[in-house]
């Protein structure tokens, strides 16, 4: 056997194309005669639409179609509630175009199609809408105030959902606890903001009755099936393709976005291709957002800092609609315990409507909030008992021999929150060994004498990854010897064309460079869900492994028949099969693929040789009963429940007390995502996650004014980190394979982002301990740091 493909640091199959500028993103798709759409969006956070006059827009040269809500007829129904939950008592989903009332700035009202985007935008500017502005609620607090305006007239108190979960006997534990500590914590609105915004192209062929849609989405299959239903087309006449996708981060798992219906609708209506490409302002007001919670947490501890019970009540800002259900707060509530033993835990949350953009999962999906709360609690205990926060963590960790560990809660997928494997104490010790905390405390003391303020922060997390329902794969060896792999979910930068190829190559004994992977194209694979919840490698990866092993079995069976040996005597490596120790018996995978498809008419020497076999005497039919042609197989993998990855990050920061600037001097990551298929790719995922976490911790903030007007509508206002803000990130891999799936994989896509706000908070607390600063809010921009310093000095 040659070197395993799984675990190898190989360069990515997708890179040459992307580096040459030959990627194909949605806006690069240009069917002949394509028209361009633009959306008139609500300028009000809450208003009644009195009238819409489109006459001037329609009269413009080059304008082809102007659609308002009534023009959509039946197709303007509320979009589906993706993940219902009995606790979501008042779900509300948007219509593609608002009918009588708009509920956030950016909500689509009119869709225009024109010769080009410039003319389409001219037309939008020429539409006259008479609005009757209504009072708006732009924050959780105002939404819950007595007599607050209602986002939806039929949702009393703006409460969409309320959920309570309980483990053990928290009330009893609180009653008898040595100490009870309380904290109020707040995490701001933020958003994923991939560099490629959203985009949709649709083409309808009236002769064939086929609808083809390209969308920059993380889930083309559900969109395909939904569009078929909505437009009354057979599923087999609708194709949805997610071509190259320029980042997703959860923003593009939301479906259906209104434009995903408006663009196909216009294409069907016109019988001509239509494209809509989101601009950045649209993205920052109308794409979905996240974070945005207020927590009241109480913890009961014994005299040694062991947690006896924890009680958390929180409010979750849903924005104007709940198309994605209440997944985000459920994840917050179930992942809050992290790596710690919480035998008594009560959590309850309210989901609150506001007149702001919709909230759906963004990388981390509720976990950064939960980790922020839990790790702030650890810091609170440490301060109360004058312990190092690391020591408080040690005293509360779930131990390696205690797996599987049942948290006792129902997870986002309806399954148990049951940690399958891990080693949390090891992660902390590895990180501390790298940073040298003893030495740090000495340097910190020296720095303080020079009035420089250094701080150490740690953040631990456990992340439920790889949830169901399932994914599938098709693996086929072609007569060229190349391997074709297709799976239903998508790729938006994770390197699936490489890691999926490595899994197939590992099973088939070939070079990953000889494996072509197609993702996100319903023409190539028709079953599955999408790329979200750090699930792609767990679900599709294992499905590909299962399918590839079936193909491997057939390869060995056919080779054994041809060579008249037992398949046990065969060796499969380097793209050839032969009898072990007899190199001249070697048959290429391509030759075997040719043999496995017994037809006579094909190019090439191997085809001719295979055809010759057909003229030889044989016992029966060319294909024996039950036999299928070719070297191909389908495989599916449905996880029993989530597999739980984990990690520990730590950083040393320096806070400038004059400017409020927080500079990260060291950043160390330990992470455990089970079996690592490609360490380089995994590191890349972590790097990006940490950078996003740093954004969330220090810079990124979606701001609405009191009237619900968004104030952060450009990249000059919504500040994402650049090369100047993200420090060198040091990574330590540990591998505790998951016992739940054949490859032992856990997800890693979101991991990097999860603990960052928590540990930056701890580091800033530590740096500014002489001023009595206690961080309770994220992000920590310079203004907020200065305010904390002023507050600390005032109370000192």
């Amino acid at each position: 056997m040659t070197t395993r493909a799984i675990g190898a640091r190989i360069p990515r199959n997708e890179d040459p194309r992307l580096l040459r500028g030959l990627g194909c993103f949605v806006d690069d798709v240009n069917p002949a005669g394509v028209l361009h759409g633009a959306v008139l969006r609500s300028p009000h956070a809450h208003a009644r639409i009195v009238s819409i006059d489109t006459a001037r827009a329609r009269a413009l040269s080059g304008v082809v179609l102007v659609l308002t809500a009534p023009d959509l007829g039946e197709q303007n129904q509320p979009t589906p509630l993706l993940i219902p939950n009995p606790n979501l008592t008042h779900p509300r989903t948007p219509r593609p175009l608002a009918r009588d009332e708009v509920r956030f700035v950016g909500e689509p009202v009119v869709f225009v199609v024109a010769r080009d985007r410039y003319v389409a935008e001219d037309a939008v500017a020429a539409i006259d809408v008479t609005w009757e502005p209504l009072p708006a609620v732009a924050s959780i607090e105002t939404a819950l105030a007595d007599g607050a305006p209602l986002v939806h007239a039929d949702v009393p108190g703006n409460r969409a959902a309320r959920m309570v979960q309980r483990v053990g006997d928290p009330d009893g534990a609180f009653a008898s606890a040595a100490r009870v500590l309380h904290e109020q914590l707040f995490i701001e609105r933020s958003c994923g903001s991939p560099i490629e915004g959203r985009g949709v192209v649709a083409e309808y062929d009236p002769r064939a009755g086929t609808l083809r849609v390209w969308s920059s989405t993380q889930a083309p299959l559900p969109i395909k099936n939904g569009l078929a239903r909505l437009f009354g087309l057979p599923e087999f006449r609708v194709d949805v393709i997610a071509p190259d996708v320029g980042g997703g981060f959860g923003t593009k798992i939301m479906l259906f976005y209104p434009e995903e219906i408006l663009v196909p609708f216009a294409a069907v209506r016109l019988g001509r291709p239509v494209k809509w490409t989101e601009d950045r302002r649209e993205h920052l007001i109308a794409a979905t957002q996240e974070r945005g919670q207020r927590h009241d947490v109480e913890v009961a501890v014994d005299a040694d800092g062991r947690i006896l019970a924890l009680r958390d009540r929180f409010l979750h800002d849903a924005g104007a609609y709940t198309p994605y259900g209440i997944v985000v707060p459920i994840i917050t509530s179930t992942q809050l315990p992290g790596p710690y033993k919480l035998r008594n835990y009560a959590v309850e949350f309210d989901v609150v409507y506001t007149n702001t953009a919709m909230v759906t999962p963004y990388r981390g999906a509720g976990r950064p909030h939960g980790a922020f709360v839990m790790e702030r609690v650890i810091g609170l205990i440490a301060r109360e008992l004058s312990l190092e926060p690391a020591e408080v963590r040690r005293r509360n960790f779930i131990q390696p021999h205690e797996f599987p560990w049942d948290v006792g809660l129902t997870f986002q997928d309806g399954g148990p929150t049951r940690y399958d494997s891990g080693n949390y104490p090891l992660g902390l010790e590895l990180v501390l060994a790298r940073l040298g905390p003893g030495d740090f405390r000495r340097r910190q003391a020296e720095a303080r004498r020079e009035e420089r303020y250094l701080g150490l922060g740690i953040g631990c997390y456990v992340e439920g990854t790889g949830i169901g329902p399932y994914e599938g794969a098709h693996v086929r060896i072609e007569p060229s010897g190349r391997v074709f792999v297709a799976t239903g979910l998508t790729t938006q930068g994770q390197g699936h064309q490489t890691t999926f190829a490595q899994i197939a190559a590992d099973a088939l004994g070939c070079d990953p460079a000889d494996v072509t992977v197609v993702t996100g194209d319903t023409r190539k694979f028709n079953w599955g869900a999408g790329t979200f919840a750090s699930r792609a490698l767990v679900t599709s990866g294992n499905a590909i492994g299962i399918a590839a092993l079936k193909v491997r079995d057939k390869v060995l069976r056919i080779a054994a028949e041809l060579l008249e040996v037992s398949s046990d005597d065969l060796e499969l490596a380097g793209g050839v099969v032969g009898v072990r120790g007899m190199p001249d018996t070697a048959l290429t995978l391509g030759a075997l693929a040719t043999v496995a498809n017994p037809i006579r008419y094909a190019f090439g020497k191997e085809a001719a040789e295979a055809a010759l076999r057909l003229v030889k005497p044989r016992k029966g039919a060319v294909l024996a009963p039950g036999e299928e042609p070719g070297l191909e197989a389908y495989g599916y993998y449905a996880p029993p429940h989530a597999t739980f990855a984990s990690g520990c990050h730590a950083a040393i920061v320096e806070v400038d007390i004059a400017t409020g600037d927080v500079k990260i001097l060291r950043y160390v990551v330990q992470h455990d995502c089970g079996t690592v298929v490609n360490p380089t790719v995994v590191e890349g995922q972590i790097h990006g996650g940490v950078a996003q976490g740093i954004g969330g911790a220090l810079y990124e903030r979606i701001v609405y004014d009191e009237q619900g007007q968004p104030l952060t509508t450009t990249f000059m206002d919504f500040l994402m980190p650049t090369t100047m803000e993200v420090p060198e990130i040091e990574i330590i891999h540990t591998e505790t394979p998951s016992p739940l799936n054949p490859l032992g994989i856990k997800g890693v896509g979101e991991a990097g982002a999860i603990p960052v706000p928590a540990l930056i908070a701890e580091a800033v607390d530590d740096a500014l301990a002489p001023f009595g600063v206690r961080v309770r809010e994220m992000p920590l921009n310079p203004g907020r740091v200065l305010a904390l310093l002023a507050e600390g000095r005032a109370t000192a």
Partner: protein
Amino acid sequence: MIPPEIAITVRVNERDYVERVAPRLLLSDFLRHQLGLTGTHVGCEHGVCGACTVLLDGAAVRSCLLLAVQADGARITTVEGLARDGEPLHPVQEAFREMHGLQCGFCTPGVLLSAVELLRDTPHPDDATIRRGLAGNLCRCTGYQNIVRAVRRAAELLDRR
């Protein structure tokens, strides 16, 4: 009232074009939609993200902040011009492949052209110089770690050439 189109002459990736363009057409849209050079990407259309960076008479510029008519007479290099059909990857492209300097690949064309300019002006940059040189290109996937490494590697590859 849409004003009449204006004729411009540009040399893009060593090829001459004479084109008629609307006065308000952005250079980014001209390259992408009129010339079909879709390697230049548009991320914000307000000059911050840098995805649309091209070289205009050798200088890295935001093509979303220029009108096509302003490029009349100019020489432009887009990502497609770094290594044309059949040519091996440009050393900067090769370095990004070696060092995993890209993930989704959307910001990459702009990053590559900024790096080409940086390494032309500063052939042996230290990390701080690399970071300053690329501070105008937003990347949401990589956390810049491997971008910085790739530019360092590209400097080595260019030296060998």
